[in-house]
């Protein structure tokens, strides 16, 4: 039970960070935290039914559910891509506005005619 409570706290920290932090780099951190909390949740739920690593060879018994682990490998890769892209965009935003503050960026870019 305690693991789940910790995971919920981690999840909420991530969600709070995305919404409440003004700094866009911190927002990206928070997105990573949010993503990780769900990854850990999947691994935790998958591990409930067994104890051993799911390597399908003779003699290996009582393995955990391999599907959540396989899914999470994909999800982690996607998460890395998104983080990288978000950081690249943040860099460009900084070059245009010289700030990481989201409200400041909004103000500076909205004054600009487009």
């Amino acid at each position: 039970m305690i693991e789940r409570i910790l995971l919920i706290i981690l999840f909420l920290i991530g969600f709070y960070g995305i919404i409440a932090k003004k700094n866009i780099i911190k927002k990206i951190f928070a997105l990573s935290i949010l993503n990780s909390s769900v990854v850990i949740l999947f691994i935790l739920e998958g591990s409930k039914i067994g104890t051993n690593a799911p390597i399908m060879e003779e003699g290996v018994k009582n393995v955990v559910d391999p599907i959540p682990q396989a899914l999470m490998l994909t999800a982690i890769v996607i998460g890395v891509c998104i983080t990288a892209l978000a950081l690249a965009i943040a860099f460009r935003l900084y070059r245009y506005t010289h700030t990481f503050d989201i409200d400041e960026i909004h103000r500076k870019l909205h004054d600009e005619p487009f």
Partner: protein
Amino acid sequence: MNLSDIIFAPVFLPLLGSVLAFLGKAFFKDHGAKLIEYSAVLIGLGLPWIVLFYLLPSMLSGTVIQLVIGNWLGGVGVIYRFDGLAWLVDFLGFSIAGAAWIYTLGAGPKGPGFSAVFLIQTAALAATAMTVDLFNLFVCLEVLGIASYVLIASSEKPGAFLASFSYLMVSATAMVFFLVGLLGLYRLTGSLSYEGIASGLKILPRGGGLTANVSLSLIAAAVAMRVAVMPLYGWLPDAHALAPHAISAVLSGVLIKTPLFALTRILIIIPEGIEIGRLMGYAGAATALVGVIIALAQKDTKRLLAYHSISQIGYIVSAWGAAVAAGLSTPIGLTLMTASFLHAMYHALFKGLLFLTIGTTTDLAGERDVYKLRGAATILYRGGEKFPVTLFCFLVGALAIMAIPPLNGYASKAALSYAFKDSWQASFLFAAGIGTTASFIKLSRIYWPQRKIDQAAPEAGTVPDKVHISIQISQIFLAIMCIASGIFASRISLIVKKLLSTGIIDTNRVPPNLFSIQNLEKTAITVTAGIVLFLIVSTRPGKKILSLIRNRPRNFQGLFLSFSLGMFGLALWMIYKS
């Protein structure tokens, strides 16, 4: 040739093309790179057409091809299904993507890198339309998303980076919730394929109870965010307004509809899906009306079009939701679904056309403000268009979205109102139609002649950019499609119906007459009311109200607030209904 060998072609050919384009970028320069890029695009966007036409006869006879990738067992592998729905979405995707890519030859962005990302996006579209596996849907949506964040930012405008960032953050967060919902369903049923989930939920007491309901609403809310239904639309206007014009056309033509039709696959086989469809349909009707009110208030030309995309997606979602609620195997459900897809397709054509023509015009004029830009027809003439192609194409698009016969917008809106009969949604859509007319009268004012002659004319020496031939080709192509699909609307609607029914229902009944006196009368009323509404909002108090709507506070946090509220509302609705 075996049919099941080629159904992956619409996914793999664009992927192959994007690999080629990247290789060309890495190993060749100038002419070589360009040659490879063009052949890559020909492979990625051209060859799938052959496959699609080859598959059409068997799709019309109701064939459904279901395959597991890599010949795994059905319970483990990823299942893809190619049927009429997938064919229709592919058709839509490849026609708009092709036209948009040709447009970029003249207007930019250019280069093998851009083409490669564009092809990846097209491949993801085709994959999203085919998948019947929940985790694969997640992957497809993420690939689609990542490609579109890059493409939005590729206009190199500072605002586009901010729009792309906001879209990225809110949609990545939504996809995390999607994963949580997926875990809930996997825990309940031990399966990830739609059929496995549906049969698993059927055996469980009370269909899985609270967990199933909440999981489904998390998934549906994440997809609805991509579709930009009220109240989850906040990311769309900036993203669509600031993206390159060709990308705007693809985004609002295809990208916001594909997730919706992909969601259909799971909702129609799960009993709880009916309620999700019903609520989303209600939200869609509200979206149609609210979207058009905000659109009427805009002063940026492309932002006005972007809000119209929201409004038109409202039309589509309202019919789609009612269709899911009625069930696709009932005649009424099928009629609604046909009308919904027909409008999705026609909207893609005319909205794509509008984005391209307005883009051409505003680029040439260097001004995007509806209230300031005047005499655009002259500017286009000066830009080298001796025959006013762009103006003519804009008029086709504008008349189509205003639902003037015989253009395609008229046909699909008539089909929608026929499908809705006298329900309350019909009156919402009718009111939205009035707003559409008014706001397009407002938009077309940019082509009216200037009052003070040549006040803002460029000085001699600063020759404006020429309108590239490829721009004209893609515009003319879309305009012809708009006109042709309007004239042959009843035949097309029969084909769409046949493809969607997958042979379950007899679809050979005679379709309703679109050009009945009653429909024409309704159009006349809409246009008259639209003109009156336009005159009202042109007065001083009207303008004040519009500027209040336009300048309502919008910020980054609002996106997340509305997403959380929407998701919470959907979950509450599901719990209440079960």
